[in-house]
């Protein structure tokens, strides 16, 4: 079964190479992409089943034994995030094939597949330097995707994105240098044994450095300013997949490193304060904006705070809630951005004062947005409610009442800004409408694909709400293994 572990990384890379070879035919490129990502999804399902049954799986690449060779590790947490992430990637890919202009340039499909491979590697790697490489693979592909087309706004905002992320990567590299100097190893499993023996000051410095590095990638307060600036300028499928996945990879790494390398036994004040500020500042930023995509971008920041809240409690129920919230957030955020793409496609803009009355013209888009928005705001019975309820219960369990109050208040503001989008886009009339272009048959076919993909993804979020019980049970088991990494360590080091 061990050959399965590298497959979610290797398959998309292989098909990316094929997509480069077939760069002259868009149909062949699309086939390559869809086959590649579907195969990766199938492997992810198999991995989840195996890990659920047999526990942590690990393999070292190149035949060297564990602390020397590069380890790939799959535990319950990484398998769950991997599966939902790859499903989202697949749906967005189908959506992109339906949108005009999204995959016209031959670089789109190879870059998209490389991005998929990088995200999968970040979830599966068991080595700090390999994690850096995974980040770079993901980011380099995302640099290409965000500036694809080279329009003026894209170049302007892409520049911010590249510079900030490159700086974060260099800080990460600095951290890796420090860790190697202090411990002489970069394997996560052996680091988790060595780091507790370091002096307190060194451990604190390393822990904070990694918290800052992954905090930039995850867009937590006060390191989030690059995100609402750069995300809305790309094509909507690209923005959707970035919104759904890239910041969540940062959150995944924060959870992984803080539980495995720098574990705490009681709630961490620093993480809880950062979580609260991230929620509040993100949602206030969203309330001030006047464009659908920018409002949603600020909500990415705000929701990161909820996941940090779950981590900051350092209890099984807190981490289980964080895992569940992460699982729910990936498809919800992505489907919101996909609906904003549908709005842009039918009205030519996403500025609130330039569109209006879509409820009559595009009732399906309205319904899809409504479902996803209610889920984001945490209205019962949708998936966001389940996630937030478990977070709040965990907060009460750990007696952190202030942060629970903040989380509830932020939910209210989230609902308010979702209502603002609803009012501006789906009700009323546009103040300065964009001239409507006549529709051709090709466009109608594309719209069918785009709507279909969005329906599937919203269906996934509803399914998360319906099967919340079993998913929470899995999250709880994932959280237990995060807080007690002995199974992880022994699986990697072969003891």
């Amino acid at each position: 079964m061990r050959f399965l572990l590298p497959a979610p990384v290797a398959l998309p890379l292989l098909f990316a190479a094929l997509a480069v070879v077939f760069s002259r035919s868009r149909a062949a490129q699309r086939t390559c992409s869809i086959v590649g990502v579907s195969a990766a999804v199938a492997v992810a399902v198999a991995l989840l089943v195996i890990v659920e049954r047999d526990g942590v799986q690990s393999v070292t690449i190149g035949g060297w034994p564990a602390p020397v060779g590069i380890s790939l590790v799959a535990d319950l947490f990484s398998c769950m995030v991997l599966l939902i992430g790859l499903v989202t990637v697949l749906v967005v890919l189908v959506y992109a094939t339906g949108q005009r202009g999204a995959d016209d340039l031959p670089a789109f499909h190879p870059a998209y597949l490389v991005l998929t491979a990088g995200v999968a590697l970040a979830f599966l790697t068991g080595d700090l330097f390999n994690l850096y490489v995974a980040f770079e693979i993901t980011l380099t592909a995302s640099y290409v995707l965000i500036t694809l087309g080279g329009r003026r706004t894209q170049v302007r905002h892409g520049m911010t994105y590249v510079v900030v992320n490159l700086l974060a990567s260099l800080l990460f590299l600095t951290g890796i240098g420090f860790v190697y100097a202090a411990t002489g190893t970069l394997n996560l499993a052996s680091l988790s044994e060595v780091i507790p023996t370091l002096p307190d000051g060194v451990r604190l410095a390393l822990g904070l450095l990694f918290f800052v590095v992954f905090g930039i990638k995850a867009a937590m307060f006060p390191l989030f300013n690059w995100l609402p600036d750069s995300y809305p300028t790309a094509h909507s499928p690209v923005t959707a997949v970035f919104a759904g996945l890239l910041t969540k990879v940062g959150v995944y790494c924060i959870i992984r490193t803080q539980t495995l390398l720098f574990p705490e036994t009681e709630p961490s004040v620093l993480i809880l304060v950062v979580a609260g500020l991230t929620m509040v500042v993100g949602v206030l930023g969203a309330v001030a904006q006047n464009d659908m995509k920018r409002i949603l971008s600020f909500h990415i920041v705000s929701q990161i705070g909820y996941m940090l809240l779950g981590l900051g409690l350092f209890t099984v129920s807190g981490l289980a809630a964080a895992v569940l919230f992460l699982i729910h957030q990936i498809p919800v955020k992505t489907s919101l951005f996909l609906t904003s793409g549908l709005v842009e496609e039918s009205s030519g803009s996403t500025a609130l004062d330039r569109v209006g009355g879509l409820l009559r013209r595009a009732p399906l888009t309205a319904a899809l947005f409504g479902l996803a928005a209610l889920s984001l705001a945490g209205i019962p019975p949708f998936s966001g409610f389940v996630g937030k309820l478990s977070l709040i219960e965990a907060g009460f369990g750990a007696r952190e009442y202030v942060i629970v109050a903040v989380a509830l208040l932020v939910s209210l503001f989230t609902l308010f800004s979702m209502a603002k989008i609803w009012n501006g886009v789906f009700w009323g009339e546009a103040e300065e409408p964009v001239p409507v272009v006549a529709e051709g048959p090709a466009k109608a076919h594309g719209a069918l694909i785009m709507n279909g993909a969005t329906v599937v993804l919203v269906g996934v979020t509803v399914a998360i709400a319906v099967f919340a019980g079993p998913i929470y049970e899995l999250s709880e088991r994932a959280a237990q293994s995060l807080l007690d990494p002995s199974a992880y360590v022994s699986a990697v080091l072969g003891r």
Partner: protein
Amino acid sequence: MTVLVAALVAVLYGTGVYLLLQRTLTRVILGLALISHGCHLLIMAAGGPSGLAPLVGLIRGDEPVADPLPQALILTAIVITFGITVFLLALAYRSFQLTSDDEVEDDIEDRRIARRSTEAGDW
């Protein structure tokens, strides 16, 4: 020797950060390049004292051998930062083509919101 390398790393990071804070794109890119060189030196220093090349046949007796891992790490990091620097330069050139200027522009939406807040202040 380690102190010298550490001082050099500090100088590279410091000048890099200074250049990064400028508004001109070329300086930003040069700043990032300097910081990345600082990073590579830091990893080299992390690898401990120098010694014989760690190749079978070249190792003699109990003379100290250099740690090969940091060199592999640096090589990978150099390739990655080189690629991204080239991409940044291409992006800066594209920006120059479009705006015939090398400065980073303000964000239009930010400007609109700043204007709205000053208007609200007047009112």
